[in-house]
């Protein structure tokens, strides 16, 4: 019998993988991909909770739709920023973006 906890464990694993990716990667695009992984982990969690515990309103499903919308907007905007960075600095390595570093 599959219960809510199983979905939540997979979601936690995916979120931790995304967390590792955000901290260990140097390419801005790879960091973006890791953020997508984390957003998907949150979505699994929301849909699982909505499916198991909220049979009348399904609020988690609606929030997931909004998360997907915002993720689409975020990727478009972030890639525009990455392109602009690449044009100005000829690299997308975030370790080189230290202009405002104290």
């Amino acid at each position: 019998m599959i219960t809510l906890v199983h979905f939540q464990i997979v979601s936690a694993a995916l979120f931790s993988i995304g967390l590792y990716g955000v901290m260990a990667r140097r390419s801005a695009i790879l960091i973006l991909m890791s953020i997508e992984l984390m957003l998907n982990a949150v979505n699994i969690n929301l849909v699982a909770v909505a499916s198991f515990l909220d049979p009348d309103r399904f609020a988690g499903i609606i929030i997931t739709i909004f998360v997907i919308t915002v993720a689409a907007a975020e990727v478009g905007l972030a890639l525009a920023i990455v392109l602009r960075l690449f044009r100005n600095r000829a690299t997308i390595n975030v370790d080189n973006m230290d202009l405002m570093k104290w």
Partner: protein
Amino acid sequence: MTWLVFTVLSGIIVGGGLGVVTTRNVVHAALFLLVSLIGVAGFYVLLLSEFLAVVQIFIYVGAIVIVLLFGIMLTRSGEYPRIADNEQWPAAVLMGLGFFALLALALLTHPNLSDERNEINLSILGESLFTDWALPFEIASILLLIALVGAVVLAREDKKS
């Protein structure tokens, strides 16, 4: 049967995720991301919300991964396509494992509230999206418009310089 599907999908999701964060090749990372996202769509089917599975395939697989691949294509540099990790990766491994252990501990000690998956009623979903959630819905559309305009302004070539 459900267990088999669940195990296979979990393997696809976690394996794809590990591929995204460990591979040195950026294009391979995008393809691993694709695999992981399709696994998540399978999870939505398993959670009886087929509508979200379709949305997931259309938007993530059809749009976001393609846009990421365009981004990879437009930003090739000297180290392309192999980009190394930074030197703080051991700390990141510890952080990731610790965070997972913490979450797993919290989830496993939590009492189980329900064993039953409920079918998502699409008509209730659509109705509440346009009544209870009408304001967030409009804000989301404005957000998309602003993001689109912002992306165009940012990515445009400078005419003067």
